[in-house]
């Protein structure tokens, strides 16, 4: 594209005469400059927005993370002091571990359920459109509303879950204050909100699989389960990879659910049993006013997410190579 624009235009060949020469060459230089710069100007709006809202905060956060910066006072340079503080802090490793366990507890059942639901919805059913829309309802509900309701449902003294467990003779469980119980309760909220969303993505993926393949499989005597395993799953592989990447990123940034489940407290339960990295960062920045430390947590989380995504891509590449 640049080559073509740079080529001299036949009509603008410089005629003899000194005065005209300078004027026209000025024009053609401008013309050439325009040809080179115009594409950049056209794409500039995206990059300007990206620099203002993406790159600048990222770089400035890194800058803050190298300072001691208490909310309301000025910054003092401490080099990697915040990183030393972070990597020698048991609370950070606790938050990291809880992020992983809650991530696994919520992502795995969520994706499996979504896959199953999508498979069912792919059949001809009565009221299929209604069911498909209904599945997306939790996703359209606000995190705050959902979490507050679930906090009541998982209440110890008057919660529905304990009421139902009581019917089968199980003693009331203190969901909020237990270690695994609180993590399970939070995972349930996440699963409830995101299963429908993932199911719809799977459904779209399934509908792009040619029905010929199913017919051929049926002719070969494959039953529904075999069709699912040998036709649907291989066809869905790129979709599944996408949902895994997105859910992993979502899980590593989990924040709203544990914060509101803990009544707006950032400590994630008395022993930090559901304090995720997001909550840990928020606690440093907004409960304790330690912006430098919060920025450090933010950057370490960012690097972790990049690492996870790279790992995902690498794994899928290895698999693809193995296939071909």
């Amino acid at each position, binding site marked *: 594209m640049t080559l073509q624009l740079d080529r001299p235009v036949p009509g603008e060949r410089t005629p003899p005469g000194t005065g005209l020469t300078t004027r026209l060459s000025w024009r053609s230089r*401008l013309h050439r400059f325009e040809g080179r710069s115009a594409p950049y100007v056209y794409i500039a709006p995206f990059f300007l927005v990206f620099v203002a809202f993406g790159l600048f905060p990222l770089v400035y956060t890194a800058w803050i993370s190298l300072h001691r910066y208490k*909310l309301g006072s000025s910054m003092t340079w401490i080099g990697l002091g915040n990183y030393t503080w972070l990597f020698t802090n048991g609370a950070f490793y606790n938050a990291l571990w809880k992020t992983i366990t809650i991530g696994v507890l919520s992502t795995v059942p969520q994706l499996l359920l979504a896959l199953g639901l999508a498979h069912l919805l792919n059949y001809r059913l009565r009221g299929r459109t209604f069911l498909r829309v209904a599945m997306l309802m939790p996703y359209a509900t606000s995190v705050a509303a959902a979490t507050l309701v679930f906090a009541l449902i998982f209440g110890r003294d008057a919660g529905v879950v304990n009421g139902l467990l009581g019917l089968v003779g199980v003693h009331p469980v203190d969901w909020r204050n237990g270690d695994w119980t609180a993590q399970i309760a939070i995972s349930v909220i996440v699963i409830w909100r995101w299963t429908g969303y993932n199911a719809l993505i799977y459904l779209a993926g399934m509908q792009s699989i040619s029905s010929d393949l199913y017919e051929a499989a049926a002719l070969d005597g494959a039953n529904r389960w075999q069709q699912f395993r040998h036709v649907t799953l291989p066809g869905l592989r790129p979709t599944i990879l996408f949902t895994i990447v997105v859910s992993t990123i979502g899980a590593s940034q989990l924040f709203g659910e544990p914060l509101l489940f803990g009544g707006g407290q950032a400590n994630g339960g008395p022993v930090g049993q559901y304090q995720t990295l997001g909550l840990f960062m928020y606690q440093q920045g907004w409960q304790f006013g330690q912006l430098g430390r919060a920025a450090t947590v933010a950057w370490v989380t960012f690097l972790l997410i990049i690492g996870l995504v790279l790992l995902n891509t690498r794994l899928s590449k290895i698999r693809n190579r193995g296939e071909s």
Partner: protein
Amino acid sequence: MPIPRKTSAAVAVAATLALALTACGSGASTPAASSGPVELKVSLFGTFGYDEVGLFKKYEAENPGVTITYESTQGEDKYWPALQTRLASGSGVADVQGIEVSRISDVTANQADKWTDLRDTPAKDSIGGYVSWKEPAATTKDGAVLGLGTDIGPTGICYRSDLLAKAGLPTDPAALSAQMPDWNAFLALGEKYKANAPAGSAWHDSAGGLYNAIISTQKEIYYDGSGKLVYGTNPAVKSAFDTAAGAAQKGLTAKLEQFVDPGWDQGFSSGSFATIACPSWMIGYIKGKAGTGGADKWNVTTLPGGVGGNWGGAYLAIPAVSQHKAEAAKLIAWLTAPEQQAAVFEKVGNFPSTTGAIAKVTGATDPYFNTAPIGKIFTASADASPVQILGPEDGVVKSALVQALLAVETSGTSPADAWTAAGTKISNQVG
């Protein structure tokens, strides 16, 4: 020349965009004229009672030309960080802001330049009317007074007389008070209650609440007189912690985290707990949560042994960037004047901090609480309460200890382990 025009148009678009992107940084502020209509913004947390009593409307009626815009954040733990960001950026702060007593030491030590010295405003005449320690706590080393006191938190014990009756315990405030000369006796009563209590009802609401009540009777808590952090070596802190942890281990608490667990709010009406440590501001909270069905069920008595304690309280202050300092100072002087403080106490229970107002309310009784002599009980507690030493990191230490007690209650952590864990948490945070 069509071609350069296109380029310049694109450049103009880019420049406009860049301008638009940077424009949000500069907040325009125009100083209002000193005479003429004034809009005063008031931003508070929790329940100060002014709106409930209708004091803003009254002030507007008495001062034509003044309009008051009022907003309130329920949780102080959300209010304060938001206020800090606004103070740091210098925009979005109201003309009058509330400051909780646990923050006041941080304000006087680290933020003196961000608040107005009330000695230079019409509010200066009000500074002398307070109980002896209230205003010194809001005064910087250089003598600047940064806030006018609203309420203080003299503390008693609120209890469910209907539940105590079922367990065969005395229900009259004086009789109950006579049976608990100290905290151990209070817990011994708890054991008796536990033996005969209705199912699902514990003696006290939470170990954290019990701890806060015990520690509220101390002078030196997390800091010593020289401003050194001494929570780890202060025997009073350890002893309060151990007493509360012991109550938790004996199963005397309902294991409900205060202000956070929805079950705690429900407990005021359902009877999950029979007693709760009761700073005067809790009176209004109980009425709100227990509702009309709770009338005549709740009652108030003194802390064990009739000791005095102080838990909480607040100040009103004017940010340095306010454009209406004189008008705001007049408003806060009026809001914290004895008549208004007494009116707030009558309605929502926030106990006055001016000596004039305390004299007005000593005879008050509350029909909701079986006509308990709340004026007398809280005045006695305020008179007997020590002058507490406050420090900038009080909040961090207190929250870590309360969380440690919750771990003892709910996760079966041993008190020794919980104490160590809280210590690690605090030293990690405070350094």
